[in-house]
């Protein structure tokens, strides 16, 4: 190996493992240009692969990211990608999750889901655009599952019918509501929760939504904040505007696969 090859290698290895100061970074760029050598990620990838291997061997030291940090990452993503909102409002103001409150809620959710009896209803005629998207999901993707809202126990929601369609592969779905009471978005909003049996009983936040005055059939796209695998149930709660990270319920409307 020639002197310049050794110097380039050492600089690339140093960049991958400890970083370069400005002078060394300039020197590396000069050498690569002078000898017409492409700058590759080879050593950086190898150092990353070694890091992952050690992380696996030291797995007991790995930590879960704090929930509020994950919430900030979701907000960062909305800003970074400039995601347009539909009629589902992104959760922008979040409070610290309370595990104790969640555990109580999750236990109640599991019990309710287990006790639920499905109430079959027929398909309706929801709003045009979203209705078409929902119909297309059902027709183009045979694996799309459909869950009907069970008869709610709360008398205020006794007349609610409709369904949920969900495609696991696309992570896409829609809810249809008929007879859902109108909410005042200044005071409270509906929030969807997806119960993923593979996710340690933590329900996934499906976003908040409103039922406008004068609406009959309402189609709401599902905006799951995390990937969901074979959801066992979909549950609606009524929360403060913007939604919550941990809901204390009650579950107003539920659709389950059981």
């Amino acid at each position: 190996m020639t002197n310049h090859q050794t110097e380039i290698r050492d600089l690339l290895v140093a960049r991958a493992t400890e970083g370069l100061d400005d002078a060394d970074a300039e020197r590396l760029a000069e050498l690569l240009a002078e000898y017409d050598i492409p700058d590759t990620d080879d050593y950086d990838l190898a150092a990353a692969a070694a890091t992952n291997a050690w992380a696996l061997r030291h797995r007991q030291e790995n930590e879960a990211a704090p929930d509020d940090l994950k919430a900030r990452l979701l907000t960062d993503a909305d800003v970074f990608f400039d995601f347009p909102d539909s009629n589902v409002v992104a959760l922008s103001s979040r409070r610290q999750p309370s595990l104790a409150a969640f555990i109580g809620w999750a236990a109640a959710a599991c019990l309710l889901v287990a006790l639920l009896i499905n109430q079959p209803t027929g398909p309706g005629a929801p709003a045009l655009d979203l209705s078409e998207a929902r119909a297309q999901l059902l027709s183009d993707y045979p694996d799309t599952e459909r869950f009907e809202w069970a008869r709610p126990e709360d008398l205020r929601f006794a007349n609610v019918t409709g369904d949920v369609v969900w495609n696991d592969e696309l992570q896409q779905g829609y809810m249809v509501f008929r007879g859902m009471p109108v909410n005042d978005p200044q005071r409270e909003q509906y929030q969807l929760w997806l119960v993923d049996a593979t996710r340690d009983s933590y329900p996934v936040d499906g976003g908040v939504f409103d039922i406008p005055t004068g609406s009959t059939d309402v189609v709401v796209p599902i905006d799951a904040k995390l990937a969901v695998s074979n959801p066992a149930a979909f549950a609606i709660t009524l929360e403060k505007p913007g939604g919550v990270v941990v809901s204390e319920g009650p579950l107003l409307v539920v659709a389950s696969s059981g």
Partner: protein
Amino acid sequence: MKTTLERIAEGDRKAVAQCIDEYSGLVWSLSRRFFDNQADAEEAVQEVFMDLWENASRFDRQVAAEVTFVSMIARRRLIDRRRKLDRQPRIESLDERDEALCENADAVLEASAEVQNVVDVLRTLKAEQQEVINMASWLGMSHVAIAEQTGIPLGTVKSHIARGLATIRDVLGEAEPDPEAAA
């Protein structure tokens, strides 16, 4: 089957949340190794994910596994940020930490055949070389600090790291499925 970063590169909104779900534990664990201060660690994680989204289209599964690419982006940002903060890497044990263990970081590492391959490759290296690679990649120590701590001459430290990384580099991308075959 497209990977999470491939879906992000195509503008799939759902994949962004999935990316956070899959990799936040790994990136957070790496960041905590670089920074004692929680605020620094959290800011670094936010910067890493910005970098990931910006660079999603650069990911090529023929070159390396997605989890390797994610760690590369993370390490670059973490190294750069630490240099700017001019702080020493933390090398003490994390055993005392009262934090939830990260099951999703473990899952994403265990699911990668490439990570398993690299674990095997590391085992084939001489003990001294393994130790040096561990100090440089996992503990984040500088080459000079490794030489001082081990008593190995600096030139040998650099040589061990370069050869070890070259050996690892040779197995990257091999374990990743053919996109056409997987489709």
